[in-house]
């Protein structure tokens, strides 16, 4: 009974998130995120139907559709990057380089494992494969958050909610998939409660932060510089050196 409640609560909250966006006319602002929510909603409903009609095939449908969920999740990370850095071409360029590096590093690990596997999957089971892809998303998301913090890019409440919610979802998924892999079937009993519960918590975060449209507002004054980037970097490096020399000079004199 409790698992059924959790199962039903998920689609209700997902519907609520989409309805609020349609009503507030901001669905197009976060297209890929809402595509993800709609996909998860349709999947949840389909899985419910599959479970009722064809219980034996539930596991197959679950794991194979889960791959598409992982792909749709990549879209959410891409959306965070696009929306947050839309007005910051310099930071966006930096992010492209850093995130591409992180992506290549984490994906190359997956490719190496997949080449060794006769099923061309980065793991012995679909669970392991999903976990590997979740790690890629996690690393890229952490890199993106670090860059946003480094350049102090202002983010609105909506984007903050999407980031926090998806981050918590990824982290809890990783923990659950690892524990499921480690403990095996004994963890299944707990998993059927823990997984939907954490997802409900994430949906509540999204409901709260995406209730109304809250665009990004940068209140800090604009810095207008005539010089190009090379001159700016050179000047900053000079200033850093000057500060270091100043400290040594004062102490040594």
């Amino acid at each position, binding site marked *: 009974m409790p698992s059924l409640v959790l199962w039903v609560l998920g689609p209700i909250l997902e519907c609520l998130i989409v309805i609020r966006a349609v009503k507030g006319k901001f669905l197009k602002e976060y297209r890929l995120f809402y595509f993800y929510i709609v996909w998860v909603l349709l999947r949840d409903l389909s899985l419910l139907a599959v479970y009722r009609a064809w219980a034996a095939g539930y596991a197959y449908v679950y794991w194979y559709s889960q791959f598409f969920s992982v792909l749709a999740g990549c879209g959410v990370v891409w959306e965070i990057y696009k929306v947050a850095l839309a007005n910051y071409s310099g930071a966006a360029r930096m992010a492209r380089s850093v995130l591409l590096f992180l992506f290549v590093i984490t994906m190359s690990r997956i490719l190496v494992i997949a080449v060794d596997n006769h099923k061309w999957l980065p793991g012995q089971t679909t669970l392991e494969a999903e976990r590997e892809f979740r790690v890629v998303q996690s690393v890229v998301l952490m890199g993106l958050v670090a860059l946003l913090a480094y350049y102090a890019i202002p983010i609105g409440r909506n984007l903050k909610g999407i980031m926090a919610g998806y981050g918590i979802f990824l982290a809890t998924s990783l923990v659950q998939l690892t524990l499921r892999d480690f403990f095996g079937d004994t963890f299944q009993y707990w998993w059927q409660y823990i997984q939907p519960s954490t997802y409900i918590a994430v949906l509540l975060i999204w409901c709260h932060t995406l209730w109304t449209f809250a665009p990004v507002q940068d209140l800090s004054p604009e810095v207008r510089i005539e010089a190009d980037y090379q001159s700016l970097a050179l000047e900053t490096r000079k200033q850093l050196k000057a500060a270091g020399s100043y400290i040594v000079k004062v102490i*040594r004199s």
Partner: protein
Amino acid sequence: MSIQVYFLATAVMLLFVSLLVTRSGLRRQGDGEGYEVHGDGETSFKGDSLVAELSARIFCPEDSEFVASQSCANVARTFQLERRLLAMEWLRGVRQQVNRVFRFHLKAARQNPDIAPLGELRLGIDFLAFQLAAALLYAVIRVRGPLGAARLVHVSLGLSEKFLGLAKDIVPLGSTTVGIELLDLDRDTNQRRAAR
């Protein structure tokens, strides 16, 4: 088991980052304070010679020796404590200036489409190195006082000069920025000592 730990560590890190985002948002989010620009003067590092001369007194042994010779141990101890606080405050001021300079840079760079990722990375490392060195110096001042810190800087710079000289003997270097900086500083210090 080790691979499980790697996955769990990634998860914990991500959870921490996400909770940080939920709790307080990102650093200086939208408040403008972090990148506040007060005008051209305050976005460049100011280390004028008069302030440098005055600050240098904090790290000079002469005053301490004079106080120690002319007063009781209690007064000398209080004097040392005051000097320590002054030194820490001075260093904090320098760090704040550098932070302001770097924030100005980030603010300008984040909107500059010509940004060079490698150069930016190198600059970030330079800034981190400065912060680490300053933090280390701060800790030394706190533990050993300004005179102890000055002695440590003397010893470490002397050692690095020796190694640099040794390296130059082994491999003839064209030019080394650090070496030139140290040599310039030495010349500057020697001139000031001679003037005294």
